[in-house]
């Protein structure tokens, strides 16, 4: 077992809204090991980004606040650290890439200044040294003709190049964890593939770990070692990428995988998960997926299922897998989702068909 570097335990991040307290993240827990890519998947509003922002204490307060839980980074609880300590960790130990490269760079500074800033702040380096470091890392992320472009402004770069600059900014101090919050969502598909490849390459070089937040199952299959599936602010399933894609246990995960477009399959309609995501202001008392779940039982609506171990590192939040029901019938789940489509699928390996090229 590799060394653990980050452990999130029972994280609760809530938001005060006019309509009441929104439980954006409620009891999320996972572990990140050294030199691995952990994917966090889920649909919009499932709490992926809030989880990531909570790790760096970037939740805007007000209205958001971390209500409880622990985040252990190398054995140190980040939640209880003060502002100064968190500032020292940000950028140097844990850094972050944001979704929108077009707005993530300050329009009034040159890229060299922006990348060098972290070096200047954390290492008290001189302007010139910091600039040299910035040039090195910018070359590493593949900005062509770096020296000539150091004093260019962000608007002189394309979206993909800006995302590379963002990556350079995040990695210039070789942090041990890089949190990538949907880093490729705003990019077109060929650039997406390049950026993801670059992140993997840099991960190998810096020996760091990546938390990759995405709603794109294809990206997860391509990039990640382990996957956390989130729904309504809770972890629904954690497992290795193989376990999630081949032996997915939770009805929600299965539904997600079913609703991926399959180019070999000429179905006229895409399978969908029926129903709506419940509002996080008014979550059901029991399992939050109960309303939409084909395997719903009476108790699902009454009480929240715990996270149950179903494998070595594989956990799932579902009553179907309680003690004594280790191998429940799962056919029902499959067939019920397929009811939405009219043809029977020839599902093979779900990770296989959905590669970058196919999506393009």
């Amino acid at each position, binding site marked *: 077992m590799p060394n653990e570097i980050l452990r999130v335990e029972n994280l609760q991040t809530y938001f005060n809204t006019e309509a009441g307290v929104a439980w954006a993240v409620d009891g999320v827990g996972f572990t990140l090991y050294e030199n691995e890519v952990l994917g966090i998947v889920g649909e919009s509003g499932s709490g992926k980004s809030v989880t990531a922002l909570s790790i760096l204490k970037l939740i805007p307060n007000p209205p958001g606040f971390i209500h409880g839980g622990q985040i252990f980074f190398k054995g140190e609880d980040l939640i209880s650290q003060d502002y100064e300590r968190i500032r020292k960790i940000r950028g140097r130990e844990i850094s972050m890439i944001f979704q929108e490269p077009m*707005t993530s760079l300050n*329009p009034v500074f040159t890229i060299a200044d922006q990348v060098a800033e972290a070096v200047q*702040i954390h290492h008290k380096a001189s302007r010139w040294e910091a600039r040299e470091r910035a040039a090195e890392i910018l070359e590493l992320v593949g900005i062509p003709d770096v020296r000539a472009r150091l004093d260019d402004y962000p608007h002189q770069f394309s979206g993909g190049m800006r995302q590379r600059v963002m990556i350079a900014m995040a990695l210039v101090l070789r942090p041990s964890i890089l949190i990538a919050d949907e880093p490729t969502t705003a990019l077109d598909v060929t650039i997406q593939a390049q950026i993801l490849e670059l992140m993997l390459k840099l991960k190998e070089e810096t020996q760091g770990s990546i938390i990759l937040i995405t709603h794109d199952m294809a990206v997860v299959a391509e990039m990640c070692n382990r996957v956390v599936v989130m729904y309504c602010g809770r972890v629904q399933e954690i497992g290795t990428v193989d376990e999630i894609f081949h032996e997915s246990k939770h009805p929600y995960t299965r539904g997600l995988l079913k609703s991926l477009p399959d180019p070999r399959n000429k179905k006229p309609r895409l399978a969908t998960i029926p129903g709506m995501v419940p509002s996080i202001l008014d979550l059901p008392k029991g399992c939050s997926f109960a309303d939409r779940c084909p395997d719903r039982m009476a108790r699902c609506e009454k009480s929240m299922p715990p996270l149950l171990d179903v494998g070595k590192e594989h956990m799932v939040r579902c009553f179907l897998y309680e003690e004594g029901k280790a191998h429940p019938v799962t056919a029902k789940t499959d067939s019920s989702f397929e009811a939405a489509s009219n043809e029977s699928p020839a599902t093979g390996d779900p990770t296989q068909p959905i590669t970058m090229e196919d999506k393009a």
Partner: protein
Amino acid sequence: MAGSETNLQDVTSIDQRLAGLMFPIGFLYIWLIRPVARTVYLALYLPVGIIRIYESILENLPWAVGTLVTNPTGLFSPVFLKRVRKFKTLRRGYLSFLILSIGYGTSFLSELLVNDRALVVHYEGETYFPAFADKKYRNKDFGITKGSFRLTDFRELKTQIDEENAEKREANGGKPAPGENYVILPPYPYGPNENLLGLLEGNPPHSPSRHHWLGTDDRGRDVFARLVYGFRISVSFGLLVTLFSYFIGIIMGGCLGYYGGRVDMLGLRLVEIWSAIPFLYAVMILAAILIPSFGLLALILSIFGWMGITYYVRGEFLREKSRDYVAAATSIGLSDGTIIFKHILPNSLTPVISFAPFAILTNIISLVSLDFLGFGLPPPTPSWGELLGQGLSNLDKPWLVFSPMTALFITLLLISFIGEATREAFDPKVYSRLR
């Protein structure tokens, strides 16, 4: 039956009384107790914030200076430089800017151009520079025995020396004698605070003449000289007050907008309360208690005049702080102050820059009105407002009203043209109207 009805009425009235009591209690809670509690809570946090911001200003000073030295245009974004280019194409505003800045620059040479003290005096082999010296020259220094302890009138000295030179030349056969004494006077040899009563006949104010282009005021001082010096004081005052008040306003607005929430709620109330103080009366009272020097008056005016820009800067910050680059800057571990002043402020300068000319204009008007009312700069400072006041009490001497009015009008007009052009240069739309 009658009794039970009365009871029922009693019960209702008790309910009503209770409701009547509850309403003011609830009202008090919402509008008084809760805000006060929040205020106290915030007041505990405010010093910490101020210290952090102070620290980060210190932190960023080397950066700003370094950029200024290595790459001066690097302090300004290309967008800003583009706006400067746009400003230059707006001919009226740019021309006004040139005229005003040249005029203001020249006004620092006033001592060389408009002065009652000579630029150079060469007397008995020694050279003096009275216009640049702090020393007060007296008649005895230049060998005048009559009134030897009186301050030298250099115009008189020049006439006297010229006469002596003419006599010597006559004796020398028309050739200039070696080692002649001479006096070089400024082009307009009258000072702003110089009393000309001994020189001119009749009672002041004297009407304009060949030597005194705009006449004299009611104390026999040259109006043109006072106007020239008044211009420098007025524009400097406008600039200084704008600088001070924008400094306060930007820090306040930046913090309110960036921190938001309680800080914003409380801070805005404080700003509103502060704005409710009647500006002119407060300044008059303060000016009556303290004897205002130039700097002190500028400070007083800034303290009562910073609120306007606060709202705009706050609005800009509210918008800018939710941009991703702020989150990115936070995520690499920058402090709040660095983010506020280095990252957000340069992106929020549009209202600051486009309002600045109008603020300068307003501050000049404030100074003129205070001077007019007699609560401004202490006499004998040459000021336009004071001249206007004299004009009011001497309505039959039109030059006393018209000359400061014209000077004020032209200055304000030029500044408004500059302001208009700045606003247009910062307008993202190419045309301000649909064409």
